[in-house]
């Protein structure tokens, strides 16, 4: 009897393991609603006065409050529209969440990453090319979200990265920002600071400073996504280019090694690089740069809110150095659109009209613009923001890079085969750091896996 009970319990439990797939796809629209959609498209798709309720599923935790502020402002003007925002943070968590949401209870507004997402969700994406904001964007900001002439997404913001430095520390060590705009200059500057830390010259002013850099190799999005992107950018012009490539040339692979060795060598673990595999983002940012334990980390403009949370005054002391790719491109910042807003094609006509109107309100109305710049602290690609400019040095640097044409494509990696950047490139770099693999093996694995992942998808 007891064994029967146990057996039953076991079956129930084990069955949970196979029931990971819950629901089947039922995203097919009925003919009637398709007809209705077409009818409304013909009438211009303007916002109606009927009561409409929209669900918005987004991933940017940092901007949650700002978005809610926009929603409140919009609802005040359009009392018949009700917008419910749901936020699920972090890249991969969001994707898993969106996938299940799409099966059970599809949102009207949601986010898309790169070309792979566009491809995967193509049948659910509303064409936005007739929207007025399209003309205010540079064409390259829409390259990766286009299908022929159709525009399937609206850029979220502009993000750029490079080496975030504590400018003041370097200046106190006698190193100027302008002297570090190239790889050689940066190396010289970092060496100078390293010496001064070792000799104790920085001790009195910065008692916590223990190394020039921290390198969070545990985060495969740092050693994978970010560090491989400038390398991929030498092979491909855009994420779409990368997406179409069956094989990876990887011509700047030697520089990938150079920049990894560079970063690792300025950490406290320079002599036991494998240990870096357990250093995470928090230790590098909140427990590193933000408390003055290190003077530089490879990161981007999105860290501004987190830095402010630890030390509000520190943000003004920071600055963003370019991401050098010695021998290929020097003195440029990877900048791009990390995510896009998309509207669900299968929603009803009123919902779609309201969703489009809301997105336009968010980025194009005077009220929306102010919130996007001041509250969400975004840098944007739109050309009609006039005097509204981001206030912190990191965002300023990113905007400046775009204006001076000193930006390289920042999100080429989103065109790599799904999970290649983190589970292949990132994981292999970890193996390299721990001594498990030689660099030649890393390069070989990266190329081989790219090819086989393309072939199997």
């Amino acid at each position: 009897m007891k064994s029967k009970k146990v057996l039953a319990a076991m079956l129930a439990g084990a069955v949970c393991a196979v029931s990971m797939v819950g629901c089947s796809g039922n995203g097919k629209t009925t003919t009637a609603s398709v007809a209705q959609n077409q009818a409304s498209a013909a009438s211009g798709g303007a916002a109606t006065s009927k009561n409409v309720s929209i669900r918005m599923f987004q991933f940017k935790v940092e901007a949650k409050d700002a978005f809610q502020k926009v929603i409140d402002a919009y609802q005040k003007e359009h009392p018949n529209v009700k917008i419910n925002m749901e936020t699920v943070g972090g890249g991969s968590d969001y994707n898993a969440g969106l996938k299940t949401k799409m099966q059970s209870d599809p949102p009207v507004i949601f986010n898309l990453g790169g070309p792979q997402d566009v491809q995967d969700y193509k049948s659910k994406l509303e064409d936005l090319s007739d929207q007025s904001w399209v003309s205010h964007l540079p064409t390259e900001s829409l390259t990766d979200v286009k299908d022929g002439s159709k525009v399937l997404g609206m850029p979220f913001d502009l993000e750029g990265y490079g080496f975030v430095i504590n400018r003041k520390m370097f200046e106190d060590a006698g190193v100027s920002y302008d002297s570090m705009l190239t790889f050689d200059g940066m190396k010289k500057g970092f060496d100078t600071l390293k010496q001064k830390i070792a000799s104790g010259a920085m001790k009195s002013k910065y008692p916590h400073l223990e190394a020039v850099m921290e390198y969070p190799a545990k985060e495969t999005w740092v050693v994978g996504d970010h560090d491989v992107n400038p390398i991929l950018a030498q092979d491909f012009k855009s994420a779409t280019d990368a997406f179409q490539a069956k094989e990876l040339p990887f011509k700047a692979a030697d520089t990938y090694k150079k920049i990894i060795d560079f970063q690792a060598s300025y950490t406290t673990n320079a002599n036991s690089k494998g240990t870096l595999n357990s250093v995470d983002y928090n230790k590098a940012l909140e427990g590193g740069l933000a408390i003055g334990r290190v003077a530089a980390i490879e990161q981007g403009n999105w860290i501004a809110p987190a830095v402010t949370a630890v030390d509000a005054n520190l943000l003004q002391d920071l600055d963003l150095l370019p991401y050098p790719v010695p021998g290929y491109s020097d003195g440029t910042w990877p900048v791009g659109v990390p995510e896009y807003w998309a509207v669900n094609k299968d929603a009803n006509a009123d919902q779609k009209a309201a969703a489009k109107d809301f997105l336009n309100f968010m980025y194009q109305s005077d009220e929306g613009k102010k919130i996007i710049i001041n509250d969400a602290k975004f840098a944007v690609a739109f050309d009609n923001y006039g005097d509204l400019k981001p206030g912190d040095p990191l965002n300023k640097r990113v905007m400046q890079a775009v204006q001076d044409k000193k930006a390289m494509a920042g999100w080429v990696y989103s065109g790599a085969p799904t999970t290649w950047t983190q589970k292949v490139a990132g994981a292999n770099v970890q193996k390299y750091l721990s001594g498990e693999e030689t660099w030649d093996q890393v390069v070989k694995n990266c190329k081989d896996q790219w090819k086989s992942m393309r072939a199997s998808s």
Partner: protein
Amino acid sequence: MQKSKARFWLFLLPALFFFCLFVLIPTLMGFFYAFTDWNGISDSVRFIGWRNFGVIFKDPIFLHSFGFTALFSLCAVVLVNLVGFLLALLVTQKFPGATALRGIFFMPNLIGGLLLGFTWQFIFTSIFSAIGQATGQQFLQGWLSSPETGFGGLLILTVWQLSGYMMIIYIAQLQQIPDSIQEAARMDGANSRQLLVHITLPLMMPAFTIGLFMTISNCFKMFDQNLALTDGGPYRSTEMLALNIYNSAFGENHFGLAQAKAIIFLIVVAAIGITQLVVTKKKEVEM
């Protein structure tokens, strides 16, 4: 007779309904998807026969994950039950504070796996290294940065979390062993060790059956602790089966493949569990 049959179904139906809805139907659908190339998003589901299963057995990462999970489960099952049993022996002795200790040992069970994972991550990476630095112990540095320390970390966490629960099961069984038997043995001149080996352990077998079964299935299916503590890192070396399946489904968009892995997983866990039940059941003795 007729009436009791109607009543039988009346009581069974609600449970049966939910069982079908949440267990039986998803399982059957899962079996179906294992033979397709569905990516989890699109409406197109293509039937591809056994191809997914062929891919699985050639996938070095899945095979590694399988080996890792098996080794981990073996070590964890032994340690969890051993520690659980020893704790049970300890707190059933009569000394002040024994009851309080029961509560304390059980407590880790009340904390969710994710929270535990993140807490222990902090302990391993920050506290361990701080202690290591202070005392000059090199082996405390860089925990979770290599496959070995990742394995050790998972093991420590699991033993810490599960042995309290096993302790409760063993306490219940220990208290069921009548004093008269123990006294009789003592009268016959058995010492403490003989008492434990020849009287207590055989009479504990029913509890071991349950304890082993629960730990085996729990360890094999471990997911949240794995996700929170190491997330498979470094370089996917500590990725256990459940996490591997999750990554295929939600990371790589290979739902069909993930489903096929899950079926293999189910068969293996069920086979090991049933074998263990049969074997330990045979060892149970009647009082």
